[in-house]
């Protein structure tokens, strides 16, 4: 006979390992920000990222001086790197929202140690994503034309255009994500305020904490606000990338005009997002010695979600091919044939299948799922695969127009790459700053995972030796 504790640990593995109590959790997480000297490795990592940000700055400056001709997109491939990168980044953000909102509503306790930086990742990814639509016009100072305001042109935007829906979807998403992240940070910022020694930091954290004192009334309002924001964010996980997929599926172009697109894009977004969370948290938990807080169990769970969403994405690939054949439309059939075998970009399709379809099959096996190293490798492969997915969808659909006279090839320029690389540097630099300045793991939420936080039923627990909290 196994005892209650053993079964319990199997069903609900402990999400905090080691012998932690309230005080040690608070000490550990807040010390990353307040006490620890900035590790040398931090300066190296941030320095490299910052240099890459300079590449972005140079590209943007050159873009503003020269114009959008510096990018490789041209007829018939009018959409290329800017929208590929936009969709790639915006997709990555989705895991953060899924972890923070949907897993909260589903009462998945394991979200608590990863939600904070997953949400930060969402925000930074949305910031990177937003750069592309704003900058690819070459006139970012006119970006406000996308907003409906009483302008002197006497015109409204074209509300029938999915690109317009994108503006609303992404700006709503950025706003709600920021609020959700910030509201969740307030109690922890108050902790930092109380613990900071430096008066300037104390003041800054004090301002950001909005006078949080941790009274019962504060907590009551906090819980309510957090739940409401979770409720607001939940539909966004599904809607934002559905709308991004409308950019393509509303157009009547073979390869884009498919009903499978919204769910297929959403699954792909969560897939890519979890890959990015793993890419970030695997080194983070090693460098910052956080294995007791971000446990192997967390990695296994994320691996499983990657496998599940990856399989949905593979279903999407299969459905695309099936519907191209089933449509019996010459253009659709040709598009799929051209994409898979006949065209000059056949390699990108099979590379995509290799990265997104084959690589995740390893996650069926415990050996790969439970190895941080293999999860890291697979996550990187998946990130590349998800970028290729957008490349395949956009470039191979556009480069063979209906008229053979309008066929063409896509040649990216160095600035296409430098802009993309630059946003990666921007993203990594922001992650480094975030890790240094704010509590990277939610202190107060992790404390609720501790045995100390469980309500004891004294009589029962003493008699039976268990904690009596199975199924709570």
């Amino acid at each position: 006979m196994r005892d209650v504790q053993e079964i319990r640990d199997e069903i609900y593995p402990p999400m905090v390992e080691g012998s932690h109590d309230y005080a040690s959790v608070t000490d550990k997480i807040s010390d990353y920000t307040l006490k620890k000297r900035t590790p040398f490795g931090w300066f190296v990592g941030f320095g490299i990222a910052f240099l890459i940000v300079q590449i972005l700055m140079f590209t943007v400056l050159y873009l503003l001086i020269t114009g959008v001709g510096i990018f490789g997109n041209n007829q018939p491939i009018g959409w290329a790197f800017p929208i590929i990168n936009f969709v790639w980044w915006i997709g990555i953000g989705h895991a953060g929202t899924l972890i923070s909102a949907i897993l909260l509503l589903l009462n998945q306790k394991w979200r608590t140690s990863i939600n904070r930086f997953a949400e930060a990742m969402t925000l930074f990814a949305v910031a990177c994503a937003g750069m592309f639509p704003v900058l690819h016009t070459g006139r970012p100072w006119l970006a406000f034309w996308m907003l409906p305001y009483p302008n002197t042109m006497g015109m409204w935007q074209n509300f029938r255009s999915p690109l317009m829906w994108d503006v609303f979807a992404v700006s709503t998403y950025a706003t709600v994500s920021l609020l959700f992240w910030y509201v969740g940070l307030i109690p922890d910022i108050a902790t930092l305020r109380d613990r900071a020694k430096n008066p300037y930091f104390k003041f800054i954290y004090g301002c950001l904490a909005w006078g949080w004192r941790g009274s019962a009334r504060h907590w009551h309002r906090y819980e309510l606000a957090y739940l409401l924001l979770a409720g607001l964010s939940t539909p966004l996980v599904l809607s934002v990338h559905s709308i991004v997929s409308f950019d393509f599926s509303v157009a009547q172009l073979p390869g884009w005009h498919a009903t499978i697109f919204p769910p297929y894009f959403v699954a792909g977004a969560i897939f890519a997002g979890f890959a990015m969370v793993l890419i970030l948290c695997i080194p983070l938990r090693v460098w910052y010695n956080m294995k007791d807080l971000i446990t192997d169990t967390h990695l296994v769970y994320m691996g499983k979600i990657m496998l599940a969403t990856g399989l949905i994405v593979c279903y999407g690939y299969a459905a695309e091919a099936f519907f191209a054949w089933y449509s019996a439309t010459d253009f659709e059939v040709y598009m799929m044939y051209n994409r898979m075998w006949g065209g000059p970009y056949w390699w990108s399709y099979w590379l995509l299948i290799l990265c997104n379809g084959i690589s995740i099959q390893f996650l069926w096996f415990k050996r790969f799922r439970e190895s941080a190293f293999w999860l890291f490798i697979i996550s990187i492969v998946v990130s590349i695969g998800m970028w290729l997915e957008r490349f395949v969808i956009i470039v191979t659909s556009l480069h063979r127009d209906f008229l053979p006279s309008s066929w063409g090839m896509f040649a990216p320029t160095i600035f296409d790459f430098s802009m993309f690389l630059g946003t990666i540097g921007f993203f990594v630099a922001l992650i480094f700053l975030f890790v240094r300045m704010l509590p990277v793991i939610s202190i107060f939420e992790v404390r609720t995972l501790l045995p100390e936080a469980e309500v004891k039923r004294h009589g029962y627990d003493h008699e039976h030796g268990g904690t009596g909290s199975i199924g709570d």
Partner: protein
Amino acid sequence: MAQLFHRGANNIAKASLVLAVVLGGLAFFAYTYIARSSYLTGRYVEKQQPVQFSHRHHVGDDGIDCRYCHTSVETAASAGIPPTQTCMNCHGELYADQEYLEPIRASFRDNKPIKWERVHDLPGFAYFNHSIHVAKGVGCASCHGDVANMAAVYQENTLQMEWCLSCHRDPKPNIRPKSEIYNTSWDSKDITPEQQKEVDEKISKLRSKELLTSCSTCHR
């Protein structure tokens, strides 16, 4: 240990929330006014010309037709700015010894055109054609105001796109009989039954609103 924040900080925090909304809203409304202000559009600002030329005197008092100087208004995109020779048709004789007409005579002598200040300056990306507007029955005054009563000409309207579109969306109120095109003081209430018939016919021949407001009608 001293308190981190003064007691009043609570009020500052609360006020900042309200102020953010109020100031944001005010800034928004301020923008909508400033964007249409004469400061930005140049509306109602009298332009000083190199010669003291008065439209009120030449058109209002003397009754010279617009087309005497702006010769191409019925046939070309530009209404045309008269050459110095046009001025000299009269001023070779009239006030030929007046000091303030010296720039005209100098221009004529040296064969150098006068640098008139442009009052109505449309951006280069907007295509505007005077002749089609005149042919369809839009009078000078619809855009330029009552020039016959302006000593120094100023811009009567904002020339912003919303102003152009206000007429392109509903041109009917601005269609007038052919006889009154160049009468900048004409009041549409004075319309005669015959003129009304003419105007109705002109309106019936107008292009559709969709065509008139199509992007490439003005941005070619």
